[in-house]
């Protein structure tokens, strides 16, 4: 466990960890659609989006891991649930509700774009460089979110989902009960054999 280290994170890690944790957990949630989306195209899309998000989380973890004396994998898997800094918004389990899934996708991409833009303008060249790379990839997520927004915007259940989820976007703090379950599942194999390499 690296929890003790993370109680005192570096100035660099402070703003980055919540972003990485959001990407990790949303990536986990989005990969729940793999195999059961409304279209085969969307199975593929959500799997791709999930991979990109996990890839972003990994790159950010790598950037902060060294100075925290840990690794990307340890940051992703070996913290206690209470040490993750993701927002309840990404923790929500939305499968099999497609309207809510797309609503979160649209709202998240929008909020994430603003956050990444701030990082692109950061003084730290490594952070700025990584943010620019992430932004380049996110273009495709935004296109995908936009396409679905246009498809569903006249659907009452989609509008309701947007209204319901919008207030949660910037919320931080207490984890949702379903986060504990996600964490259990996410770390199950890793915890099953102590000290093993996978």
């Amino acid at each position, binding site marked *: 466990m690296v929890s003790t280290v993370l109680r005192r994170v570096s100035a660099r890690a402070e703003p980055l960890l919540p972003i990485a944790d959001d990407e990790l957990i949303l990536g986990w949630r989005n990969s729940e659609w793999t195999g059961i989306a409304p279209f085969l195209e969307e199975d*593929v899309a959500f799997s791709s989006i999930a991979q990109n998000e996990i890839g972003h989380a990994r790159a950010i973890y790598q950037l902060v891991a060294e100075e925290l004396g840990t690794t990307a994998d340890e940051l992703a898997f070996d913290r206690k649930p209470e040490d993750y800094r993701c927002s309840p918004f990404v923790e929500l389990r939305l499968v099999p509700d497609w309207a809510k899934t797309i609503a979160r996708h649209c709202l998240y991409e929008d909020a994430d774009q603003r956050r990444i833009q701030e990082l692109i303008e950061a003084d730290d060249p490594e952070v700025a460089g990584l943010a620019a790379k992430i932004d380049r990839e996110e273009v495709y997520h935004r*296109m995908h979110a936009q396409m679905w927004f246009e498809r569903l915007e006249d659907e009452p259940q989609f509008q309701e989902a947007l209204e319901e989820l919008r207030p949660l976007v910037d919320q931080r703090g207490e984890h949702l009960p379903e986060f504990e379950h996600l964490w259990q599942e996410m770390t199950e194999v890793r915890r099953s054999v102590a000290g093993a390499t996978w």
Partner: protein
Amino acid sequence: MDSRVHVEFTPSFLGCPALEVMRDQMASRIRELGAEPEVEVVLDDSWSTDRITPEGREKLRESGFAPPAPREAGGSQLVQLQSKAFKCPYCGSTETRLENIFGPTPCRSLRYCASCRQPFEQFKTI
């Protein structure tokens, strides 16, 4: 003589599932040539698909992958992806349409050629 070889390589997408495989294959090929490899994975925006050589683009096409559109032409815009500017790598027709922004891997989109009725993959612009 310094027999170390330093390689910097940037994944097209950060979440590329083949990153480790590519990194390890580079290292083992360099070792076969008798040098000690240092492979560094670059995590910034300095590489672009615009830097794929004409020879590399041709190899993509031969393997059934349509090469990426240039960044400058707005290759990553939705309008572009849907336009007819994309050629089928099999028959050369521009009668192609976007089937899915996301293809089998993060770096590719899926298109369909209405002319030879062949689905094909289009590399994304990065």
